[in-house]
């Protein structure tokens, strides 16, 4: 018996599918995960003993000697990545709409776009991290680097898990295995994806735009 048929036979006390309640519960819990990371970032803001620093010049160790280092953030790149992630949320809403309406074309098309956006965002972060590394910002260089890389790294790994999840669903969508009756599975993944976007909506200003 399919899961959907089962759901009809065993109605829930709230009328909401248990998987949907579960993903929201997970999202609620993850708020605390990111709150701990963000708190630590803020608590240590401005307390690094050496550079590189996010928005100001500093003394830092580069190529074996202490020298003046520029502020390390490249706002245009990150802003573009932020926009890409925001649009990916838009795309997945369209994909879900397509799934619910039974349009495999819409579903596959927009879900592919979402996955591409996710991959682009990860790519941007990888590029950003390696760029920072070459400018003297290693993981353990200073408090800024440790808190920054851990926070954005946790976010990035959540994006990665999301990309894997969505890619799996994309594969199944292409094979026609996500009819409207199974759109809930995409909805669950979409909620996770939106949450990952929402976390970035907080991280972007707090980390990149607050001096």
């Amino acid at each position, binding site marked *: *018996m*399919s*899961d959907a048929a*089962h759901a009809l036979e065993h109605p*829930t*006390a*709230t009328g*909401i599918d*248990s998987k949907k*309640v*579960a993903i929201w*519960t*997970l999202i*609620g*819990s*993850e708020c*605390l*995960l990111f*709150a*701990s*990371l963000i708190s*630590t970032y803020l*608590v*240590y803001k401005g*307390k*690094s*003993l050496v550079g590189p620093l996010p928005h100001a010049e500093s003394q830092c160790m580069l190529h074996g000697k202490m020298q003046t280092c520029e502020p390390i953030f490249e706002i245009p790149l990150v802003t573009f990545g932020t926009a890409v992630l925001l649009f990916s949320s838009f795309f997945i809403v369209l994909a879900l709409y397509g799934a619910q309406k039974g349009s495999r074309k819409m579903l596959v098309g927009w879900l592919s776009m979402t996955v591409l956006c996710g991959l682009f965002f990860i790519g941007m972060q990888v590029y950003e991290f390696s760029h920072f590394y070459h400018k003297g910002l290693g*993981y*353990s260089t*200073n*408090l800024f680097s*440790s*808190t920054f890389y*851990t926070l954005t790294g946790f976010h990035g790994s959540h994006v990665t898990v999301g990309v894997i999840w969505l890619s*799996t669903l994309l594969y199944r969508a292409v094979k026609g295995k996500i009819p409207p009756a199974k759109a809930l599975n995409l909805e669950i993944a979409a909620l996770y994806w939106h949450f990952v976007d929402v976390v970035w909506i907080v991280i972007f200003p707090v980390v990149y735009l607050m001096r």
Partner: protein
Amino acid sequence: MATSVLDKAPAAHATAPTGIWSWITTVDHKRIGILYGATAFLFFLIGGLEALFMRIQLMKPDNDFVSAETFNALFTMHGTTMIFLGVMPLSAMFFNYFIPLQIGARDVAFPRLNAFSYWVFLFGGLFINFSWLLNAAPNAGWFGYANLTSNQYSPGLNTDFWVLGLQILGVASMAAAINFFVTIVNLRAPGMKMLRMPMFTWMSFITQILLLLAFPVITIALVFLMMDRHFGTHFFLPEGGGDPVLWQHLFWIFGHPEVYILILPAFGIVSEVLPVFSRKPLFGYTAMVFSGAFIAFLGFGVWSHHMFATGMGPFADSFFALSTMLIAVPTGVKIFNWIGTLWGGSLQMKTPLYFAVGMVAMFIIGGLSGVMHSSPPADLQQTDTYFVVAHFHYVLFGGSIFGLTAGAYYWFPKMFGRMLNETLGKWHFWLMFIGFNVTFFPMHFLGLNGMPRRVYTYPEGLNFEFWNQVQTWGSMLLGVSMLVFIYNMWKAARRPANAPADPWRGATLEWLIPSPPQEFNFGTVPAVGSSTPAWDLRRANGGALPEPASESGEGIHMPRPSYWPVVTAFGVLGVIGSILFTHAFPQWYFITITGAAILIYGIYRWAFEPAF
């Protein structure tokens, strides 16, 4: 094992399958509950042994029964074991077995996730105890304060075992919390509104919320600690600008809700047992629900009362002192409501009642010493002394363990179809009650007279000898009481399984089905009209309840057994546990990769296996 979704799921078994494979692949909440209980009880006994060894060492001054290093490992592992491998999974035994029964459900929302939680717990408990075999047991305290836990001051695998073990256990707790939360929200029987749920289910519900909100914080704290230890960061290390006190904040933001996680299920059990054995409804059901919720919510605002000696300043001290004192109010409401439940009742002097009343009395004492801690100036004398050890043992042992034991005697007949012997039960109670108080009450005196915590010995002439000796004898008595309990269970196991469905005249749904229940729990899902459905049925039947008939289970299909939960759990152990050596020996990364592969493969096979 490809099966088509079109396959008909097997009908529910009239009798449970046997054999070890059936236990490894079980997704039945009742079986998983028993697995949790048996495993937790064993770990509890191990934790008890760790305590006895400490007590022997402290029996006389300048003793050399164990070395200082071993003593450090003993108190660290005793605390870690009792909390994470003892009380929490013992509570989980009852969550598993009784939440679905009490809400009239056939199983939890995600049965395979339930099994997964158990296996991850087992592997985490084995992992952290494996350290003993390498002479590398965690030894920096169950709360792992920085920067003692840094690589500089704790070289070696001890703290790594602790960090990674807790991360593994955290996965189990989080999965279970999501599961029970959704179960309670979504699988209640028709008519069971939230404010008609049994108190045990309510307190367990609040406990799941606490788990979901508190565990992520310690997860992050442990990640930071691991990074400091092996990847050169300075999250908690002053030489890089870090602040060791940040660890304390993060730890106790988790740690304080954690103690409510430890006590609320026991509160729930007591709120079940007292009404049944007083033949009276619980006094102030709604107040009990809301006070439990209030305690949990406030519990996020008191954490720095564990840090009064760290120099936070008068503003912070005052804030946390006030919030801590405030939490005594809803707790007091519960105490008075329990007394109100007993008052004027027709008391059935059975073992569950003894333990429940014992819990209330011991918790009052523990609460009083707790309120004494809430005053920062007073706490400056009490902190890090045996006074604190007395306090938390009164609330954790006197509170949680007495409460859980009450639950054990109350629910044993339902779980195993056999009654525990009443005489042995009372012997257990009195030996435990006397042993407990003899062990822990004198710690109040020792603490106020200056005996510090976590010391492996003390010199002569400080007047510590007498009470330490008394305490050691008390702990031996506690050990004896455990033997009585084990003997009681063993004797019961050899009796035939013919206990009645409702030996105590219980009020809640689990008493309406056979002892032990059939695989599908309820033949027909019951409709509920109040918070005491079994009493309602009794009243409607003129005071008697017919013994429920065994049903065929025809037409009911239950979730199918699966081995993907245990496989995926292996993957979790592989990924997290392997960090123990891969951080130092990167060439062994293939173990982590293998673990990740097993994990991902297990998840995919689980996801695409039909649940039913």
